[in-house]
């Protein structure tokens, strides 16, 4: 999992937004350790998704730089970047008619990895089902499995539990813990953090508020974070 370089992700003096001057986040600095679970939190429209996409190298920066194991993520080619980071979008694809097995095979090295992943999810019967026949929650779980199969040191997830039912959320948290134990680093932009925090499964939390990013105590009571968001 370690691909060399200092084993951290650094966000240095970053501004992100849309167009040349319209910034959503004006100043972001952080350093995330490898092999851990990190949260990005904030109110709707605070810029979590934009920052997360930028950290995954999928959204341009207005200023600053983002280094993954000492490599500027925006200087990598698409193929190189796909070996470093995986990304799960907030909404699963709704129109793709590929079968689940085919989608997973696009990310995996071989078929046996796909079989193992589907059985780890307890969903072997999904192999032949078409993506557009799954519910949003099911499709989102497929996209999560797809990201894990990409087997990258860093995995970024935007609202990964938004469509999940309660049992699926539990399974998702378990998979998250397993991935972190395997040495993958998981960065989640989410509103759904209380359960993770109460399990002590979170290593760092960053709050985005009024265009700025600040580190908050990862083991604090989430109520305090809510108050900070309202301030």
């Amino acid at each position, binding site marked *: 999992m370690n691909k060399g370089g200092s084993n951290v992700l650094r966000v240095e003096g970053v501004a992100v937004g849309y167009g040349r001057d319209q910034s959503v986040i004006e100043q972001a600095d952080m350093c995330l350790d490898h092999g851990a679970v990190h949260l990005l939190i904030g109110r709707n429209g605070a810029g979590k998704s934009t920052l997360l*996409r930028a950290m995954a190298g999928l959204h341009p920066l207005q200023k600053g730089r983002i280094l993954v194991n000492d490599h500027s993520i925006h200087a990598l080619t698409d*193929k190189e970047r796909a*070996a470093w*980071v995986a990304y799960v*979008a907030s909404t699963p694809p709704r129109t*793709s008619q*590929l*079968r689940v097995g085919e989608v997973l095979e696009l990310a995996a090295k071989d078929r046996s990895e796909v079989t193992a992943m589907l059985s780890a999810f307890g969903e072997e019967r999904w192999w032949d089902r078409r993506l557009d026949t799954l519910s949003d929650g099911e499709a989102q779980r497929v*996209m999560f499995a797809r990201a894990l199969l*990409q087997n990258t040191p860093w995995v970024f997830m935007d609202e990964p539990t938004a469509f999940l039912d309660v049992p699926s959320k539990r399974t998702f948290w378990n998979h998250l813990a397993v991935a972190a134990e395997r040495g993958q680093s998981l960065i989640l932009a989410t509103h759904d953090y209380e359960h993770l925090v109460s399990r002590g499964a979170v290593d760092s939390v960053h709050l985005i508020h009024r265009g700025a990013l600040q580190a908050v105590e990862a083991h604090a009571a989430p109520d305090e974070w809510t108050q900070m968001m309202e301030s």
Partner: protein
Amino acid sequence: MRHMTAIAICLLFVVLAISHLVLGDIEVPVFGQWSTLHEEIVLHVRLPRLLAAVAGGAGLSLCGLMLQTWFGNPLAGPSVLGISSGAGLGVALLVLLGLSTGWWATASAAMLGSMLVLLLVLFVAHRFRSTTSLLIFGLMLNYVIGALITVLQSEAEQEALQQFVFWGMGTFGHGSIETGIALMLSVSLACGLVWAMHSSLDLWTLGRVTARSMGVNDRQLRWRLVALAGVLTGGITAVCGPVAFLGLATPHVVRLLTRERSHRVLIPLTALTGAVLAMAADWGVKGVLGTGQGWPLNAVLSLIGGPMVIWVLISKASAAHE
């Protein structure tokens, strides 16, 4: 089941290809001695027409598949988005202004025209949130380009005008053996290049950001699409004239015939089915139905393609209501 469909389409392909070579006013024996007349008919009349139909059908259908995947829009196709009209405008400028009528010049003008229109479509496409807007944009482009061609026609010399009108009717039967072979080779090469992109096209169905996160270079993919769709639509339109509906309808016929949705399978199957549909339509043109004269190619194709579009619209609408 998947192999059965592929085998059935291959068989149809072979049967139709042979039928086009041997059947007609003068029948040519499949086995047995050919006279000089037989050779002449097959080599200079029937084979060029067959090559144009196979290459035209396969190439336009692949264009349709690529465009439908790229835009995530089942109703995209070279004729719907104005790309065929762009090729037509290129040819119109060349022929009606009396610049040149050589095959390479016509083909280059057609390719350039279709690439420019596709670039314009790609440039504006991301501004449209609804897929219907993109189709209406294509429809308007078709009107505007059609109007430009009409203006050019009204200013043209009689001889050039006749030549252009003749070309504009659309047929697989205008080309020579040389243009047939050139078209077949270019379409085969383009098929290979499209097939080489099958994983990227599969990933593209998962959405742009996800595809990029999995290593797809979207800019490169877009330029390849422009080049391939431009060369295919332009080259085919230059030889066969504007051919309606084939690009739009074939991918849907394939989706009806097979449950496969991976481009690894869809690409060869669409090319093959496109060739089969083009050959079948050409029997309508040649007058297999006993009407003697036969029907214009675009009339035959519109009779198949029009209902196909309506069917797609209705099935999309009922899926949205569920």
